[in-house]
């Protein structure tokens, strides 16, 4: 079974803090994704990585950056957290155009 793990299930941070969300997958997938999920807006892609050190902006990259130094790990960074970044963050991985496998999510609250 594919396993995608995320570093925290719940996280509370203050405005202006730097936030790191970590994601690890154990199936040697090339592709990894970061989404945020908000009521009424569905899943929106923040960033996508198709290989180590390769990244591509998604639909809403502003205020975020990513890092992929190893194939199994994809990190999402909020350089200076703001209250409008309070959301559920979901990481996923996939092999080519196949199904995406999701982690359990991190519910981030920025105060």
């Amino acid at each position: 079974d594919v396993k995608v793990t995320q570093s925290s299930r719940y996280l509370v941070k203050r405005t202006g803090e730097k936030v790191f969300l970590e994601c690890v997958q154990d199936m040697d997938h090339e592709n990894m994704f970061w989404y945020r999920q908000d009521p009424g807006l569905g899943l929106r892609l923040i960033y996508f990585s198709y290989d180590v050190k390769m990244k591509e902006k998604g639909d809403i990259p502003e205020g975020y950056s990513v890092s992929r130094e190893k194939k199994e790990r994809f990190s999402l960074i909020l350089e200076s957290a703001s209250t409008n970044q309070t959301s559920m963050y979901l990481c996923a991985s996939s092999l080519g155009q196949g199904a995406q496998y999701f982690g359990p999510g991190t519910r981030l609250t920025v105060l």
Partner: protein
Amino acid sequence: TQLLEQSPQFLSIQEGENLTVYCNSSSVFSSLQWYRQEPGEGPVLLVTVVTGGEVKKLKRLTFQFGDARKDSSLHITAAQPGDTGLYLCAVGHNTDKLIFGTGTRLQVFP
């Protein structure tokens, strides 16, 4: 404009009832995926459909891909409380990325 429209947005039913949810688009896709997301968890893939007119069954769930590959339906027979969750359809779009619909939130009461 939303590429994928899902309907209904919300559905509350009693245990034992049947239901159908829909995923529609004006575009043609090579394949379509259905996911279910339970509260507090990430989405989990249920099925992928690739051929126009294809029907796939997964226990009480029946998935159909439209003949023109623009739409899909998910039918649940004799719904159970364990079916409660957010049902999402998704399609590939030029790259390895997926586009997700906004989902149908299903609540099944005992």
